[in-house]
């Protein structure tokens, strides 16, 4: 890399979701759809072909009445760093046409709809089911096309799409900064649509590499272990697979933290 141009420090954008605060209201899902021109169709009750970049899962602790408990887990794309956090996310390394890549400047996993030819290998590779295929042509009836945002290109049938951490907002923030003669942007200048909308304030977004940022303070990622959280209440989904996601969850409930990964029965230690 040309050193003169590497004037921005490498960033690693990540998200922390406080599951104690999350109410499962679904505002993040809709904020995301509205922001990113996500299509909708007549019947969306089959969740296996319903495009929701951000999906809120409902978990139960499996106990019977009245000891039952529920928890909601919002699941955007986890923007995995892959084994060793080198950017070989499960999906990026398998894409045959380089339609998705890992941006080492931001840690964000992209998806280029016009490059994708729809082989769906990335979907098979993603353990979080964060990738969605456009089985249908998107249709916005009546005047609904009017509400489409020009900042995100609508996807055509036959390609895969997923959460981009609202990358266009990063671009816009940079453009604003450039217009003011700045190279760097502030923490609050780049926030994803779901973070901004969450009425419970459960989502925090920022640069995990920056100790000044809220996300860093909340989970205290351990650089020696690919960003594994040092905060004992924080966890990442499927930590054991070494996908090294950049989405962290916080819960004060033990059963919720345990529901974030697979354990063999009677396996007591949380993570080796």
């Amino acid at each position, binding site marked *: 890399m040309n050193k003169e141009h590497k004037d921005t420090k490498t960033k690693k954008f990540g998200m922390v979701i406080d599951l104690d605060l999350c109410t499962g209201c679904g505002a993040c899902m809709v904020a995301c759809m509205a922001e990113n021109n996500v299509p909708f169709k007549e019947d969306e009750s089959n969740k296996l072909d319903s495009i929701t970049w951000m999906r809120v899962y409902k978990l139960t602790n499996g106990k019977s009445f009245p000891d039952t408990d529920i928890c909601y887990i919002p699941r955007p794309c986890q923007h995995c760093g892959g084994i060793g956090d080198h950017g070989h996310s499960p999906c990026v390394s*398998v894409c*045959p*046409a380089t339609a998705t890549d890992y941006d080492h400047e931001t840690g964000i996993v992209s998806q280029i709809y016009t490059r994708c*030819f729809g082989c769906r*290998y990335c979907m098979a590779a993603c353990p979080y089911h964060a990738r969605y295929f456009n089985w249908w042509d998107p249709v916005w009836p009546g005047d609904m096309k009017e509400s489409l945002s020009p900042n995100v290109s609508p996807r055509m*049938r036959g390609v895969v799409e997923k959460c981009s951490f609202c990358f266009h907002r990063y671009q816009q923030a940079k453009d604003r900064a450039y217009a003011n003669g700045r190279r760097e942007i502030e923490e609050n200048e780049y926030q994803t649509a779901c973070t901004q909308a969450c009425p419970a304030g459960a989502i925090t977004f920022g640069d995990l590499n920056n100790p000044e940022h809220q996300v860093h303070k909340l989970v205290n990622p351990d650089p020696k272990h690919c960003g594994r959280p040092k905060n004992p209440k924080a966890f990442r989904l*499927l930590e*054991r*697979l070494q996908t090294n996601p950049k989405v962290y969850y916080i819960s004060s409930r033990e059963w919720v933290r345990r529901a974030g990964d697979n354990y*063999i029965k009677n396996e007591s230690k949380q993570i080796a």
Partner: protein
Amino acid sequence: MDSALIPEGVKRCPLWKFALGIIIVGVVLLWGVYAMFLCWFKGLNQTNMNDAYGFAIWIWADLAVIALGGGAFFTGFLRYIVGKDELKNIINCTIVIGFICYSSALLILAIDIGQPLRGWFIFWHANVHSMLTEVAFCLSCYFAVLTIEYLPLILENRQTDKIPFFHNLSHNLHEVMAVFAATGAFLSFFHQGSLGGVAGVLFGRPFAFREGVLIWPWTFFLFTWSAAAYGPCFSLLVTRIIEKITKKQLVKQNVIELLAKISGWMIATYIVAKIIDTWYWAAVTAPSNGFTLLDFYSGNALYGIWILVLEIVICGIVPACILITEKGRKNKLAFTTAIILGVVGVSLNRWVMVLQVMAVPVLPFESWNLYYPSWQEVATTVLPVAYGIILIMISYRYLPIFPQEKELNPIES
């Protein structure tokens, strides 16, 4: 009517019978073609695939036909590289089968992708880290090789052979066929392997993920090995079926037995490797991700542990035992059972490595996914079968596929 095109010294059924057969299979073919166009013009919503089943019956069919077509490269390898000369009497048949299998695989891939007109991106914008890229390159190259190998057969047709240019071309091609066979074997080693790698590299899917050597997971080697082992079974099965239909012996028993014996030993060694792989995976790889073997097999009845038993014991150990013993090979029933089990076994393995990978939940709060294909998917999967039958019918009728046919079935004049 078409006797001028029929190889000399052999007898073929009347044209009307042949035409009738073609028409019947052709109807099935047209059904498949109709479904294919539906998928192209209306999109993949015509299938029952979904976001959990991005890979489904088509990818299975792809992997399966390529494994079954593995007879071509392995027989070629045995004949030209190892020097098992007797196999020249069955190699044409394996080449036709290989050609059918590989062209089918490419066709299915062209239907399977969401944007067929962008299919060439896989070459132009290739990501060298992707197993699928490796598959695409090797598959296309080997398909080209198979076409070159198939070409001399066409040129050997009585009429084309009369054209000196073609005659010479055919002759020259035969001379260099060893080079192509070697290239084919080399390419096949890679793409059979990379097809295995497709599932094996998925470190986000503990059911599929295998540790490996160099850049390849173990499934890479297992797939090559199993294709080489089971591919000949399919070639033998097809030969057997043609023999049954034509009511003629077409290949001498010693040739059949030689191939069967090699196949048997290959299966035997493969199954040992497979058992070791399964054991290591169940004991080390999967538990490190928080799964026990039974977690993968206890979600629903369709994917019970029986599937593993069927694959390894019934479709692995059993055919291996039959084919490596002379008694087994000589017993017609046992032999047929063995090659059928072999074909089922390798198809089942590919099924598991595609569909069960999708079915097993990874997130603890997700549940098992089940999937059944839509008629469009079935039709497009049957399409290559129909196409294959037609191509075999034509090839058998007009081309000297079985060099020993004349000798084994002298025409009484």
